């Protein structure tokens, strides 16, 4: 695999997402052995009646959550890009939460330290379980590739049909 495809994250296609929250349930079970969306590393957002979208860590380059931590409790793995939390160092101050534009890093309701998607070591359960196949475990480059292909397909719809 070329190195640009190292950082795989959980992407969501909002056109396919129906907001059912199966991802939340399976995530909380996988990580905490209980059904509880509050303990899920991926969260659904429904706006009005027609917009649904799940959100998980996007594995930012130079993740702002890591930069914001005053206690060096967060580290970003160089290869996979996942954010690792040192639970002994974290005191739940929440600066990382403020720094994250996506609400993807959260305070654990019991442990009172932050927690974030770790992609289940490259085999995310939410992607496996999504009934609508709205979740994709992929890289940003592939997301762009898919968008390009779909845009060109639309443009040349007539030609491709014949």
């Amino acid at each position, binding site marked *: 695999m070329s190195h640009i495809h190292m950082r795989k994250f959980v992407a969501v296609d909002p056109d396919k997402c129906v907001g*059912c929250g199966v991802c939340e349930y399976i995530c909380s079970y996988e990580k905490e*052995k209980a*059904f*509880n969306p509050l303990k899920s590393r991926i969260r659904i957002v429904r706006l009005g009646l*027609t917009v649904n979208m799940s959100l998980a860590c996007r594995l930012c380059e130079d993740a702002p959550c890591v930069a914001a931590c005053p206690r060096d409790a967060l580290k970003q793995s160089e290869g996979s890009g996942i954010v690792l939390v040192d639970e002994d160092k974290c005191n739940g101050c929440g600066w990382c939460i403020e720094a994250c534009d996506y609400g993807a890093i959260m305070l654990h309701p019991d442990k009172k330290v932050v927690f974030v998607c770790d992609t289940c070591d490259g085999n995310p359960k939410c992607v496996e*379980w999504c*009934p609508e196949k709205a979740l994709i475990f992929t890289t940003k480059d592939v997301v762009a590739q898919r968008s390009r292909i779909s845009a060109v397909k639309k443009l040349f719809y007539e030609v491709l049909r014949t």
Partner: protein
Amino acid sequence: MFGYAGRILRVNLSTGRTKTEPLKEDVAKKYIGGIGLGIRLWLDNSKPGIDPFSPENPLILTTGPLSGTIAPTGGNGHAFVSKSPQTFGIGEAKSHGFFGAELKRAGYDAVILEGKSEKPVYLWIDDDSVQIMDAKHLWGKSPQETEDIIREELGDYYIRVAAIGPAGEKLCRIACIINDKTRAAGRTGLGAVMGSKNLKAIAVRGTKDVSVAKPEEFLEFVKVLHERMKGPATVKYRTLGTPQNVLVHNSLGCLPTRNFTNAVFEGAERVSGEYLNMRFVTKINGCSSCAMRCEHIAVVPEGPYKGSMARVEYEPLWAFGPHCGVDRMDVIIKAIELCNYYGVDAISAGNIVGFAMDCYEHGILTKDDTGGIDLRFGNGEAVIKVVEMIGKREGLGNILAEGVKRAAEIIGKGAEKLAVHIKGLEMTGYDIRGLKTAAVGYAVSFRGADHNRHGAYALDIAGKTDRFKFEKGRSKLVIEIEDLYMIIDSLIVCKFSRGVYYKGFDDLARYYTLATGLEMTAEELRRTGERLSNLARLANIREGLSRKDDHLPIKVMTTPIPDETVSKGSYITQEELDFMLDDYYAHRGWTKDGVPTLEKIKELGLEDLAYIVEGKV
């Protein structure tokens, strides 16, 4: 306990006192949850013969043993049970979405709402903390506005709210309770019971874990159900949705049209599921934990009702469409949106408008009564106006808000003959004049006119039975589905998922045991379904209902289907109905008057309710 939270919350709205009680394991297993547990709790917490709007009529809210788990469709249900202001028997309505799961996570299997608050309030359940909050500022608001305001003022956007609208506040007898903006506990007028308690809304935030007894096997089973949900059993709900029924019913001559005047609608194409999906559906949503998703969100793209948005199912579509002789989808979507706004059951609302139109066509109502509205069948604008009048209880709407049965009594002049209802509850979109297996299910349904208590229409429509002639022994088929549906509504799994339990009670018993850890066999669960069916019957008998209430609408029994269609000429005579009821009661082990015998009551472990049938058997 696994699956269950093991707790019941009791809230006295008169005194403001709240307390929790344990849910005992044997009670849980015997009544499952949902409507089964709800009916039992209602019986145990009320006196016979109370007025539905009296503070003494408790409103019961329940979840099921699967609520709050990943169980597809089972994870998200809740039910309301109380004495219905429409039928004066037991009323129940379920809803899905996200509210039920949240209530389970807050740690409750049931909430018993007693008494009546002096002023408008809402209930705020924040895990173990339960508060009664002032709702003066919410009075008059729609359920959707109420939901938004409560989330904003309590400062948490994941709070789930079940609320009544202005109609519930005004004791409109068809008022419903709406959660998650578009999901309604719709039927039997329980929103009005909530309104009679001055209870505007129930807001819940639950943060506790929900655990099942055998998680690995449970997840394995859920995975199997996910696969099945992608298959043929649910394809209708995932594609066209229930509005697919329009053209099917039309071709079979069982699409009630113009208040059961016709059984075929000339405008069916324009209100079909096909047309709806092609032109209006913009998104299909799912409830919490569902693997099939069915919620067809439709938006009006142009015209006078541009921008109106509603979740559209067959029943409301039928009620405002064919039943009112209306062939305009924009009117139907707008009317459903208004029902959500005022908080009325869209099925009953559409029925009532159709009834009023029928009265107008027969000269029973005139422009003087309607406030100048030309209430002819097919007048879409008139439909919209009348729905608003019902929601606000304005003008004629004040009478119509009583439901067709009471409205007909008030209007008089023979309007009773045009009032299409059973036990006071308005009909649903099946012309049972030519669906005779369904007809017996409708007649005996404990909550009044309803297809969802028995599902027997499916046998008629699929051609598994002779739908024009009822023979001895047919009731057995109805009873089997009734008992299964009691379990479906008590576990609370969604009716749309019924086809994925390939082995029926076997699958559901396994589901129950894996979640709760309580051993349950298929036979035990079938028995439980029978127990719950009898329980509901006993509740109705306690409230004074009897064989005479197992009736069919007058139109169904006097007017043969007039259209040139396969069902032409079909209707149901009194003699036929009596034959059906005798057959049904006999197979139930009930007396000729439809009363469960002492023997039957004992057999089902309901001995403590024997007092209800004293002197009747």
